[in-house]
């Protein structure tokens, strides 16, 4: 009895999205198979971003601050460091717009975004402070300040998407559509956004992942189901998935706790926590990964290199 290789035939594909401007564009999505099943279709290599914040983060542990020593107070220099460290994109988190963290206004954060954009050539992702109301006010200004850079702006939710998407439409950006861990809500948000005439290939889905140990399995299965949906031809589940692995991983006690003998060295453990969160979600079908620690990004990339090898059958 011979083993006959089983090849799935899919009719759909993940939307392909181009970010940034020539000659520094980055391609995201476009996959025609389950992740890394090279024998039955194309897997497009997932892309990486490193996170930069507009104000120096107060709650980052020393092992996370160390790689950015000297630039944490200067988002533009920090962004340059990210590119040197190998990030395909830079993700600017406008944490300083949060009312409890400085309450910077739209004009101020737009100026920071412009400075960061001038410092690097790679495409940008710009994320607000996470408060839906505030983000609805600041992101349109950011969109205008970054006109022509073809960025990804977010996070647009069910409650604030209109303002965010309007900014993207007016100034030529894509949008990060964020929904709680629920595939139907993700789909509904995609529909609402495309009804505003943003093309379906200008959306990245953010499933609000939980990190390793804290709900990653929900995100893993939702991303896997989205990929299966995309491959089966559902155009409202076919947007590339973005995973904020850095932000989520560095909240856990496993990354925050110092060197303790039962858990081993903090830096190695924390880096692996972030890298494993990313590798497993790439295996589910994630396309864009936003990291905090450069070593996590390096380890992720090495593993993806290995998974991108052709298979022999």
């Amino acid at each position: 009895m011979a083993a006959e290789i089983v090849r799935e035939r899919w009719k759909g594909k993940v939307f392909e999205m181009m970010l940034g401007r020539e000659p520094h564009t980055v391609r995201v999505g476009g996959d025609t198979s389950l992740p890394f099943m090279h024998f039955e279709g194309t897997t497009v290599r997932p892309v990486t971003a490193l996170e930069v914040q507009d104000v120096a983060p107060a709650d980052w542990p020393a092992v996370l601050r160390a790689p950015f020593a000297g630039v944490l107070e200067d988002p533009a220099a920090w962004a340059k460091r990210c590119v040197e460290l190998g990030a395909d994109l830079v993700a600017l988190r406008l944490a300083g717009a949060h009312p409890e963290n400085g309450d910077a206004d739209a004009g101020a954060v737009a100026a920071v975004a412009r400075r960061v954009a001038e410092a690097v050539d790679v495409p940008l992702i710009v994320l607000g402070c996470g408060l839906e109301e505030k983000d609805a006010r600041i992101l349109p200004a950011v969109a205008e300040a970054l006109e022509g850079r073809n960025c990804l702006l977010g996070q647009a939710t069910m409650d604030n998407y209109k303002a965010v998407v309007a900014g993207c439409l007016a100034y030529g950006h894509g949008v990060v559509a964020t929904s709680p861990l629920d595939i139907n809500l993700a789909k509904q948000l995609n529909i609402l956004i495309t009804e505003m005439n943003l093309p379906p290939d200008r959306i990245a889905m953010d499933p609000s992942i939980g990190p390793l140990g804290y709900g990653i399995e929900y995100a893993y299965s939702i991303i896997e189901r989205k990929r299966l949906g995309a491959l089966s031809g559902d155009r409202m589940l076919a947007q590339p998935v973005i995973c904020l692995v850095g932000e989520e991983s560095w909240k856990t006690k496993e990354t925050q706790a110092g060197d303790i003998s039962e858990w081993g060295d903090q830096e190695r453990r924390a880096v692996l926590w972030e890298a494993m969160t990313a590798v497993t979600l790439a295996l589910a079908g994630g396309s864009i990964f936003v990291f905090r620690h450069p070593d996590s990004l390096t380890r992720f990339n090495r593993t993806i290199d290995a998974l991108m090898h052709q298979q022999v059958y």
Partner: protein
Amino acid sequence: MALTGLAIYKLLPKTNCKDCGQATCLAFAMQLAAGKASLEACPHVSAEAREALGAASEPPVALVRIGREGRVLEIGNETVLFRHDKRFVHPPGIGIIVADTLDDDRLTARISAINRLSFDRLGQIHGVDLVALAYDSADPARYLRALRQVLSQTELNLGLLCPDPDVAGRALAEAEERKPFLYAADEGNLETMVDLAHRYGIALAVRGRDLAELAVLAEKAIKLGHKQLLLDSGAREPAQVLADQTQIRRLAIKKRFRPFGFPTVCLAAGEDAVLAAAVYVAKYAGVVLIDTTDPAEILPLITWRLNVYTDPQKPIAIEAKVYEVGNPGPEAPVFLTTNFSLTYFCVMGDIESARVPAFILPVDTDGTSVLTAWAAGKLTPEKIGAFLETSGIGARVNHRRLIIPGGLAAMSGKLREVIGWEIIVGPRESAAIPAFLKELQ
């Protein structure tokens, strides 16, 4: 090979007696064909029918047991390709490779490092399952000496990575009581290895150079009468391992290809072995072997295994009522959180690790986290007040102090007005709860 539901139905008694739990014989036949039921459930099936049903009546992936009674590692019996289709059932065993070339002292150190690889997660201990002793020395005496040391220094289950049947036979004579698995039978030693495994009633790994050879060898082993097998396609490159694992699972489930109806064994090696191991844990490994004793590597891997093998049908929301941690008295602190199961379990775990008895009140927010619920207007002072009232917490404590998540600091004034309790703003992240509780006391 795979039988259709109708073909199976023809072989059943057709009495519709319902003893199998299904309404009709046909319904039962359909369940069998889909791999969702076992023929055992029908007490009336004839011996001839049982024979004829053969493959269709067996689970698509056999259950394989490693280890002695009381500590058995059960793997296999999986029925799906994606955990969201139903669930993954038996978490893969994680085995640490130990070379027999280590001298006695280093071997002792390594075994004790392996014994320490266990972690408390929400009150449960999770650790590695196996010590896999590799016959690298090419010196039988050295292997047996190392084996005796392993046997006396750990209670963990064993794998004998020893393709030399002579040495394996001598090792098994000493380790028989542990019921180790034996790795691996290949083209050159298949018959003697099967014979050994059979004699000792243990699981045997079969290794091919590729999937095609693996199928041939596994079929031979089955014909020789051994059905406790583990499969190794010989691949070591992560991309090829992932593809082979996928093919083995697809063929077992979709095609009922008998030679691949067994759990697999994967070896993760290299600089990023633990990340490759995480890939294999998600994609179908029955046993993952890895060469590290670093808790910083094993803790994330074990956590990932736990996550992938949780039941996806487990509700994302828990019931909104008063929960107790420890044995809280009337003075115990009262924590407010949401009924998103993960939020709740984090808070619970962190209070537990602080060893302070407390009450937890998870408000019904449709299973969303604190910030999501707040942003969506599902966590208002009025709603919290109503829940406090109906929960009956007021009668169980002699104080009126409510600890709220740091993310809700902005509503503390309003909340105090509405519910009339003193509000204490707790930390934003539950991980900071132990430190917070220390300060509070």
